[in-house]
């Protein structure tokens, strides 16, 4: 009534669409989602584009592209796999050829991990530096790491800013067309939090939809008994379908005398507790048959190698976790049949729906493509 000038159009309110995770049967109900990065449909959509866009590296020449998906391949449960044509044996390296210090970790169900990311949990809500507290940190760390994209954050954000279509997507997701590495990290983290595997044969067994074979059942018993293979204390089971505690264990890979405890990336170098020397995150066993090589240093190429290690080749040290109570017998001493049964059970954790879910795959086209 009072205005006498021309009506200015109201700015479009920033109202991204909240995204709600459905909790699968038996899964945790508490998520690890930072308060400053709630999940939204628009954020996830943007994150998926960025996850697959090689220009995330801040470069546009076809020979210089690198994205998260360069190494994190959906068909291999978002690891590179031992059959990768470039990363021989599953050992990745950065864009310059510099090897990554540790092999990859599974990118599955990370929204339920509250005990830190990376093999030693360095990126954690307990980290005094707020820049290293959640999945968001892993994104910018990947951009600048010499053994990954070897770029810099200004280059990365300027490159994305100048790609038609992206500024609009950033506005939808975060209310501003200005691309920031912080928002790039947030978007990709949101996408990663949607990568949920909960429909393996074992999940269906838990829900009463299928029955396991006799061999798989025998393997399940071995998996969850102390007299058997005793995997469950660290790797979960019926009561913990994450198939990991997400905690850190010295699992008896090395003795004191091989110099292996000088790794700057073990748990000890986060906590300073000598009992954490040589301790690394227990990985989820979901889709584990696709995620070799195994252990933090990739010393085992196959599941059979891993089962043989836990069966016969454990090595005592003062730092071995007390849950490794078979350590002085060098392992759980499984018979060939028991090994086959255990492997059969572990293979029930393969989730083909997850591996082929189009929502997790590369977009049909990028924002600047017609």
């Amino acid at each position: 009534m009072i205005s006498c000038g021309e009506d200015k159009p109201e700015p479009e309110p920033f109202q991204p669409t909240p995204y709600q995770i459905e909790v699968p049967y038996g899964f945790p109900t508490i998520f690890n989602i930072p308060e400053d990065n709630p999940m939204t449909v628009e954020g996830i959509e943007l994150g998926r584009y960025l996850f697959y866009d090689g220009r995330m590296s801040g470069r546009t020449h076809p020979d210089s592209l690198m994205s998260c998906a360069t190494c994190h391949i959906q068909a291999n449960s978002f690891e590179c796999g031992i059959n990768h044509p470039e990363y021989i044996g599953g050992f990745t390296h950065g864009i310059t050829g510099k090897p990554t210090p540790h092999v990859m970790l599974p990118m599955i169900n990370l929204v339920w991990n509250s005990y830190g990311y990376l093999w030693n949990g360095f990126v954690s809500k307990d980290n005094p530096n707020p820049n290293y507290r959640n999945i968001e940190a892993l994104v910018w760390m990947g951009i600048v790491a010499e053994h990954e994209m070897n770029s810099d954050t200004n280059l990365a954000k300027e490159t994305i800013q100048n790609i038609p279509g992206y500024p609009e997507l950033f506005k939808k997701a975060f209310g501003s067309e200005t691309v920031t590495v912080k928002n790039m990290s947030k978007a990709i983290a949101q996408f990663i939090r949607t990568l949920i595997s909960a429909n393996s044969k074992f999940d269906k067994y838990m829900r009463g939809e299928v029955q396991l074979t006799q061999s798989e059942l025998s393997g399940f018993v071995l998996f969850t008994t102390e007299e058997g293979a005793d995997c469950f204390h660290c790797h979960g089971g019926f009561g913990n379908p994450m198939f990991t505690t997400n905690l850190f264990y010295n699992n008896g890979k090395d003795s004191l005398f091989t110099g292996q405890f000088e790794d700057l990336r073990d748990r000890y170098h986060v906590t300073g507790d000598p009992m954490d020397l040589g301790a690394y995150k227990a990985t989820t066993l979901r889709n584990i048959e696709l995620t070799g090589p195994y252990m933090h240093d990739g010393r085992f190429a196959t599941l059979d190698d891993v089962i043989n290690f836990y069966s016969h080749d454990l090595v005592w040290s003062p730092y071995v976790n007390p849950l490794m109570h078979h350590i002085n017998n060098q392992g759980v001493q499984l018979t060939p049949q028991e090994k086959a049964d255990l492997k059969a059970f572990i293979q029930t954790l393969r989730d083909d729906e997850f591996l082929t879910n189009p929502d997790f795959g590369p977009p049909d086209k990028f924002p600047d493509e017609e």
Partner: protein
Amino acid sequence: MSKNIINIILLTLVSTAFFSCKEKPDPPEVEQHIVINFDFKNNGEYLEFDTMMYINEAGNHYMVNEIQFFISDVILHNSDGSEFLIDDWKDIHYVDTDVPATHNWEVFDNIPAGEYEKVSFTFGISEEKNHSFMFPNPPERDMFWPEFLGGGYHYMKLNGKWLDDNQQISPFDFHMGIGQIYYSYPDSITDFVQNAYEVVLPNSSFDLEENSTKNISFIMNVEKWFESPHTYDHNIWKGYIMQNQEAMNVACENGHDVFTIGF
């Protein structure tokens, strides 16, 4: 009655209702609470972790690395014969030596003031409450007890190492939960044994005054797990007992006097 007079009466009534200053205030709410702290000792001294400094009754040199356990059904026994079960908010409490937040249990319940002559609780979780999947989130989740062995949750994981007969440092996982009766070990289970048991804390009488918060300590005296009435020898029972009901029974019987109370 004229319209003006009616308005004056109404105004007077409304004013009285809104501006009366003689209303009695509500009596202050009286609440009593308790906070239960969990401490760990060995031979009267606070427990030290990760160091091979203890010797049990069997002569085993041992260390403790971590302890995780549940208690439930905490009951305060009033001297008038009544009992107060702490269950208004949650009746099962998890304690983890690696998780400081679990060492203090600020009990939700408003507890009647009075004289209490003793405190009791269930070590572990009783059969009627020990259901699989009731704790989907860590750290409680990671206490799950495999379905094949009876389901539900571990009552306790006490993990450590001892110097064995061969003078080797060996891990022991002193884990308690539902036991099994085997027809042919270790494959054929014919029955399960509920090993959770009641603990009555000695010398646990206390007064709870009106409008007060009482701090109580439940102290686990670790050496007691390995003595009285049975001498627990790690060289006999070895490093793991989840599928050994005989060993778990020894642990339970020793466990009755493991806890003491402090104020």
